[in-house]
């Protein structure tokens, strides 16, 4: 069966694998920079050494994530040229600039100041040192804007014309590219998702330590900071997700209909299916559990309004772009991903509220609520799954396009790349990612095991501070 898999499948698999793996560490790092910065800022204002210990301790986890995020990120920039050279040629006039600006503006900022932050704990005044980590955070956040500007163009092209000689995209209005409405619903959703990820990760890791009855004060405070960040962020992410959904109903109706598993146009008002069995051959659904009115409310914030089904949208797309393409997206994946994402988001909010309530200063009973500690510990993994689901909806839902309405996935592939090369790189990436992910999780566990009091200074193995006095001959 190996030979039924062609170059396109292998290249798509590679893109999916490398971006999904990369995107475990991206939101985690962006959010961890924020959480660490908040902790260090608390130290600056409250002058309580515990917050410094906290920033250093969770900072170690942040640095581990950042390292894996950086190295898996380089792949992305190279990959467009390597696997998707025709896409790069088609989109180069628009797509390259955000990548270059991302590097100039964001990557220089984060990489320089992360080096400064790591090695200057004892050299700079606390306030100045805290500025370093905020600049790192700013860098990570700015980088999200620019890479999403590139992605937003692929979802909803703006500010371009087609060059009549070459048939490629040509930039006409740069402001239109960066004020793309898709970008400004997508970026807040993604960035709040990133803060959510780190908030619940910190809370979850702290919960496991509380479960083991270690350092109650330190971990309770950490947990509460994590949960506050997580709660605010997850509510904001859901709100932004709602904005994005309403944008997508109009902009990419096929994607929306697929996330709701609707083949035929709904009645008015539209009912929302919680779960259903989808038959992609016959275009029917079975065993629906429906909530009346809810789809109209979700879609339009009104008690009425119908939603177009995929079959109708397909006819429209065929009329617009020709009958030679298949416009149906992977319905089941989108349908279930959406439910995991939205349901997961609500679950996170609930867990955060419970955690904050039972750990409140007046009556902290969290240590006795073993079930809640276990729940918090397990929800640590949920944001990673939710992020992935969100991207599956966004990217698979654009099928068959790489640039919506302009350029197909099949046209995007490098003509020179062979299946042999892709098998080799796919397998190698898979092995190396398994190794990196495993080692990263292992070392995070060791950091937790050693606890905040371990004087394991992670100055890249310099056991003593290399900038301490005795380290210098001068």
């Amino acid at each position: 069966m190996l030979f039924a898999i062609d170059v396109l499948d292998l290249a798509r698999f590679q893109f999916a694998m490398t971006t999904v793996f990369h995107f475990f560490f991206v939101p985690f790092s962006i959010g961890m920079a924020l959480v660490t910065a908040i902790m260090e800022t608390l130290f600056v204002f409250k002058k309580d050494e515990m917050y410094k210990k906290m920033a250093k301790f969770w900072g170690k986890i942040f640095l581990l994530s950042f390292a894996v995020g950086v190295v898996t990120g380089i792949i992305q920039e190279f990959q467009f040229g390597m696997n998707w050279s025709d896409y790069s040629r088609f989109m180069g006039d628009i797509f390259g600039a955000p990548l270059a600006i991302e590097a100039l503006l964001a990557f220089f900022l984060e990489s320089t100041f992360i080096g400064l932050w790591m090695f200057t704990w004892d050299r700079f005044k606390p306030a100045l040192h805290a500025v370093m980590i905020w600049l790192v955070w700013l860098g990570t956040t700015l980088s999200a804007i620019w890479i999403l500007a590139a992605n937003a163009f692929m979802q909803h092209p703006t500010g371009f014309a087609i060059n009549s000689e070459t048939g490629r995209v040509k930039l006409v209005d740069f402001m239109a590219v960066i004020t793309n409405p898709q970008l400004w619903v997508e970026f807040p959703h993604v960035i709040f998702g990133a803060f959510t990820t780190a908030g619940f990760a910190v809370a979850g890791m702290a919960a496991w330590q509380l479960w083991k009855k270690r350092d109650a004060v330190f971990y309770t405070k950490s947990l509460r900071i994590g949960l506050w960040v997580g709660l605010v962020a997850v509510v904001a992410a859901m709100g932004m997700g709602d904005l994005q959904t309403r944008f997508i109903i109009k902009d990419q109706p096929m994607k929306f209909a697929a996330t709701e598993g609707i083949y035929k146009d709904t009645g008015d008002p539209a009912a929302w299916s919680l779960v259903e069995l989808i038959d992609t051959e016959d275009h029917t659904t079975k065993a629906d559990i429906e909530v009346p009115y809810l789809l109209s409310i979700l879609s339009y914030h009104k008690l009425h309004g119908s939603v177009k089904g995929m079959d109708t949208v397909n006819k429209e797309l065929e009329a617009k772009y020709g009958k030679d393409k298949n416009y149906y997206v992977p319905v089941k994946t989108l349908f279930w991903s959406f439910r995991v994402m939205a349901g997961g988001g609500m679950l996170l909010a609930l867990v955060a509220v419970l955690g904050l309530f039972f750990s409140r200063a007046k009556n902290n009973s969290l240590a006795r609520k073993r079930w809640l500690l276990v729940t918090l510990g397990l929800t640590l993994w949920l944001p990673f799954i939710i992020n992935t689901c969100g991207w599956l909806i966004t990217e698979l839902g654009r099928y068959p396009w790489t640039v919506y309405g302009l350029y197909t996935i099949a046209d995007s592939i490098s003509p020179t790349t062979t299946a042999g090369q892709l098998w080799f790189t796919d397998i190698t990436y898979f092995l190396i990612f398994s190794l990196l992910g495993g080692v990263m999780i292992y070392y995070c566990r060791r950091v937790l095991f050693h606890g905040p009091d371990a004087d394991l200074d992670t100055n890249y193995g310099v056991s003593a501070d290399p900038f301490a006095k005795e380290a210098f001959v001068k």
Partner: protein
Amino acid sequence: MSGLQLLWFILLAVLFIGFFFLEGFDFGVGMATRVLARDENERTQLVATIGPHWDGNEVWLITAGGAMFASYPLWYASLFSGFYILFFLVLLGLIVRGVSFEFAAHAETPRGRSIWRWALFIGSVVPPFVLGMIFTAIMQPLPIANDNGAYNVYATFGDQVNLLTVVGGVAVTLLCLMHGLNFIRLKTTGPLRDRARRLNAKLAWVLYAGEAVFAVLVFVFTDFFQKRPVSTSLIVILIVCAAVVMHVGALKNKELLSFIGSGLSLALVVGLIFNGLFPRVLIGVDPANSLLLKNASASPLTLSIMTGVTCVLLPIALAYFIWAYVVFHKRIAPLNS
């Protein structure tokens, strides 16, 4: 060809020079962890010299790649897809190298530490070697097909691995090692500092031989001397001069002089390639299929926006980038075991 296209061709050369100058010594320090250091304490001392900087140095490669995508998308697309496996090897090297710093700091056993230190070494040898191969491969005529203006490079094994590319890879690796040794001389105290100097002085003779061979191979394998006899010869002479400067600096114990010499060598090699390519960016076996600057670039609008953005952002980035080196200007002393 417009002025903007020329400007961006030069800016790309500058970005790649920045990358080889900075990550060059970074790679060299990584190589020195096995070539120069004798025990784990010395390795740790070496890694501490680049600890705060390596990530920022690597951003120069990301910036150069992104800028190439933005300003010359066709060059970027044909180059990266044409030299598929070579770029993949560069990535592998950079991946294991990038995580090695952080992972080594967390390793609790000598064995675990040793694994990540080896990852650093391998990740410091492979990327400069393979990038050297890629950059010398594009000096030679390549099988390019027009394919409706796509200019696909169907590079065979022989186009990627031949005498010039192997010598080119070795030369770039050697230059990075020597540049790293000079950086170590500037950034350490103790036995490593003088050992680096002596090794550098010895390697200078290897470098002279390598440069002579490289010059002959460039003459045989490429059209650089025919197309631009004056400038190519001049740059080759300057490369040798830079090597002499470095050598003198090593013999007379002038560390900064050596560092400038090795840095200039790397910069001039990039200059040699860009100068010889011009006005082409990829050379076709059939000259009609060569990818030219004027065909490969982005639109004037994109180029002018990128020019404005770069003029504002690069100086700011450079300012704090240099500040980081000022903050960490002190030498790293040997660790007490």
